[in-house]
Each structure stands twice: as C-alpha cells, then as structure tokens.
C-alpha cells in the first residue's frame, strides 16, 4: 500500500508541474508527505510548507553541477563488504525484549494489525 501511495504521489506531482521544478510544492503535497511519513503535522502545515519551499529552492544550486560519469558516494571511507559472524546474541536478545514497551510470556506484544477497533467496542 505504501509503495502504491508513493508512486501515486510522484505521478500526480509530476503531472501537475510536468517538467521538473525543484522548489514548487503545495500544502496538499505537505499533507500527503506527512501521511506517507506517518507523522501528524496538524496546525503546522503552513510553516512547514514555507520552510520546504525555501529549502528546496536552495537545493536548486545543484542543478548547475555537471555530474555526468560521476559515481555516487554513499560513505566517505573505503570499507568494502564488512562481514560479521551470523550469531545469536542471547544476552542482547533478552535485554532487547525486556526493554520493549509491552511483552507477554517472553514475546513482544504489539497492537493488532487486522483489527477494526471501532467495531470491537
């Protein structure tokens, strides 16, 4: 679902502006991004939109740089294929479980995913 939402967001954004314009973003876009990122921004939409416009506008300076044939850099030091042993650390596992907000019988307890709570009441 999230993947579809993202693809849909991108296609409507593109359709609206057609050509790529870095700094233009609407209040509706901000609200949809907030929903995608699962963060409630009620009451902050206007300020977040203004900041986003300014910041994305600033980023336009990168358009002038020729990066043809330049490889992307994801980390600045040369560390290749760092591998470790695939071992269970039972001490850390126990501590991790103990620090989880809710547990039951040594298992992690999470809210139900498939439940429609409003119907349960």
């Amino acid at each position, binding site marked *: 679902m999230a993947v579809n939402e993202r693809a849909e967001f991108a296609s409507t954004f*593109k359709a609206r502006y057609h050509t790529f314009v870095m700094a233009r973003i609407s209040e509706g876009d901000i609200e949809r991004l*907030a929903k995608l990122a699962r963060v*409630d921004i009620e009451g902050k939409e206007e300020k*977040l939109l203004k900041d986003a416009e300014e910041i994305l506008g600033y980023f336009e300076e*990168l358009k002038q740089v020729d990066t043809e044939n*330049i490889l*992307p850099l994801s*980390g600045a030091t040369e560390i290749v294929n760092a591998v470790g042993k695939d071992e269970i650390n039972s001490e*850390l596992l126990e*501590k991790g479980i103990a620090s989880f907000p809710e547990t039951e019988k040594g298992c992690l307890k999470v809210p139900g995913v498939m439940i429609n709570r409003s119907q349960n009441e």
Partner: protein
Amino acid sequence: MNKETLSIKDAVSGITSREFSAEELVTEYLEETEARNPEINAFISVRREKAIAEAKKIDEKVKSGEKVGPLCGVPLAVKDNMLIEGEICTSASELLKDYVSAYDATAIKKIRDAGAIVIGKTNMDEFAMGSSTENSAFGVVKNPRDITRVPGGSSGGSAAAIAANMALGALGSDTGGSIRLPACFCGVVGMKPTYGRVSRFGLMAMASSLDQIGSFGKTVSDAEEIYSAIKGKDDRDATSKEAAESQINISDPGSITLGIPEEFFSGEGLDKETSQAMDEVIQTFRGSGIKIKEINLPHVKLSLSVYYIIVFAEVSTNLARFDGIRYSRGSDENDTLLEIYLKTRGRGFGDEVKRRILLGTFVLSSGYYDAYYAKAQKVRQLIKEDFVSSFSEVDVILSPTSPTLPFKLGEKTDDPIQMYLSDIFTLPVNLAGLPVISVPVRGRENKLPVGFQLIGKHWHDSDLFELGKFYERI
C-alpha cells in the same frame, strides 16, 4: 584544586598518587553542576549517587594497588544520545523521555573501562538535529561565556558543561558540526575523528553515513586523552576500522604545510572579528616555521545542499523506527494502527525533526530520488575528491569553525536556512569523512570565543592533536 586549569592528566595523577580521591573530585564537579546547571541547563540528567558510588570503587582500586585506566576517576559528561544500560536515554525528545536503554554504547563501555565516571547526560538538539541546542524537549541550553547566547549545537550541553566547569571532559556526536560548533561557541576543544575511527554502536542514529562520536576537552590534550580511550574497531559497528595513526613531524615545523582554502575565507558570510582572529592564527602558524599554502576546494560551496539532502533522506529512514510500537507508546487507547503511528510521532517529535522527516520522504520519493538524493551523492563524491586531491599538496587544512560569533538565543529559530548556514564550514568535512578538531583562538578570554578547524587526511587523526597542542604552546 583549580577546576579552571585542572587537566585530565593532572586529575588522574592526583587520584593515583592519592593527593585527592576520585570521590572528592567527582563530588566537586557534582557540586558545581548543582550550582550552575539550573541556569545553563547543560544536563538532562545527573547521575549523582551512581557517580559517587563508582568513584568510591575507583578509590578502592587505587588503594589496593589494582591496575587503573588512563581516565581513572575523571568526571565526564555524555551527550544524551548514547546508551547506558538500565538508564534513561532521551535524545532530548519528548518521544523518548522515559526510554530505558537495554545495553551500553561501545564508547560508554570504553570510557568506563578506562576508569571515567559519567556524571550526567547532556542536553542537545532533539536527535542531534540543530546547530544551537534550542531544539530540545528539555529546554534551551545557554552559553556559559554569555548566557544571552546559544552554545552552538547539537552537542551544546557537552560543550557548555566543560565551559562552566561542570565536567572535565565530554563525549558528543558530530554529523555536520555538532561537536565543533559548540566547542567553538563555548571556547573549548572539540574533535570529530575520521568516520569509522570510533564505534557508533549504541549511538542513536541520525544520519548514519555522517554520524561520528568524538570528544571535548578544555585543551587539545584533554580531548586527545578521551579520544584515545574510545577509538578502535568494534565488531558491532561494521563501518568501524583499525588504522595506523600516521603522524606529521611536529619537531620540524618546516616540514609541515598547512592549506588555506580560499573558499572558506573569501565568503561574504564570514564576520569581521572572526576574519581578524583567523589572520592572527595564520600568522602564528607562519611565524613558527610551518608553511602556508593557498588551496582551492571548488565544490565545497555546494556542501549545504548536498549535506541536507543526504541528512533528510537518512533521517527519514532512521527515525522510522520510532513508530509508537517499539521504544515508546504515545497514542490513545483504542487507536487504530495508523492513528498510533501518526499520534505518537506527531506528539513526540519537535518541529525540526518533522521538517527533516517530511523533506527526507520527499527527496526519496520515486521520481525525485535521482534529482535530489542521487545527485547529492554524486556531488558528495566531487567534494571528497576536492579534499583528497588537495591533500597531495598540504598535510592539514585550516579554516574557521564558524562564520560568525555565537549568536543570540532565539535569533535563528524561525529561519531554518539561516540556522543551517551556521554549519557551512563544518559540514563539508563530514561529507568527506575526514578527521577534524576545533581549537579556540588564544587570547580571547574576555571576548566571545572564536575557533578554528584543523582538517586532516583520512585516519590521520593524531596529526590534528599534534598540531593543536603545538598551537597551544607556541
């Protein structure tokens, strides 16, 4: 003892020779903390009882002639984004105000193995996102050198704790300047090691390809003592690495060339007083026989855009873990799963964190990934290459740490770009993964502090300590 001048080495030798006890030393720092912290707000939590109990154990060891570590009894402050097992770690976020750590960060384990006593966890910008330590759920930190001004961020509490003599040294984390800017603004030394020199295990991740733990001290030597204790490969951090510390020959200053990047000195943003102070620093080095060479780093002017695109992207993914299911619950009973996510994150995160998560989600959206994130990674390559190629001509690069003097509290809080520009000189170094130290310009005891950066080659961290100590004594 005089806390203004006490060094880590003096403290350790005082304790091991039993001139004073670790308990006395720690108590003295705790008393200073109780007196000054209500005003400065450098600490989120103080470990009074635990610190005293740990100091007593150190004293017993000394008494019985047991072997003690190089930080024996040294009271240190630790940024509240590093985990101590069984203790609350907040990252200055409302969302984690009750979160109890399940294990020790490697850096914490190492300083404690070396005998250090953690006296408290320091205030910071929420999840280390900020340049002024005003983005904290636990209130702003004030600069001990002028309480109407910010201490710099995001490790502002750690720097302020040292400047106000509430700790002898500190740990911080630096993603784009978060150790160096506070060190500069508070008039202390702050060092960010080469990316990978210090394990990030147990450090709450902000932007994983840039984050690095480092040290603070009143002097270069103090920062070095702490650095020596925390460095090294850790199996729990796959990006950590053991590497030889090659060294410049400081006894022959004429053999050393210091690079002055034109781009860091010619900008309109550099204020006059900082510029004058930097001229003095260059003259001091030149007078000592060190060669000075002008260099160019043509792509560094793009660092701010590159840095923030990468940071936003990494923040939005790293902070996805704070979902209201793990770590903490911040929603209401009978909420649906979607409501749990939205409410926990909406209530728990501050404005800057939300801003970064939204923009990170944007730059990673399909269709925009190439234009923003991939583009930024390519320009990051060019920035790194600028540094690497200039290091074929010079040994160390010198620049101001901050373009301005410490600014007033509240001055930049409504303008994110102005706030981001505070780090214009510090963040290129993280993009390139290089080691760097910020050292206070001398002779400014009665003025607002100015700091300069010494930037070293990859893994040449010790060059910076050597050159920094050299500056302090010439």
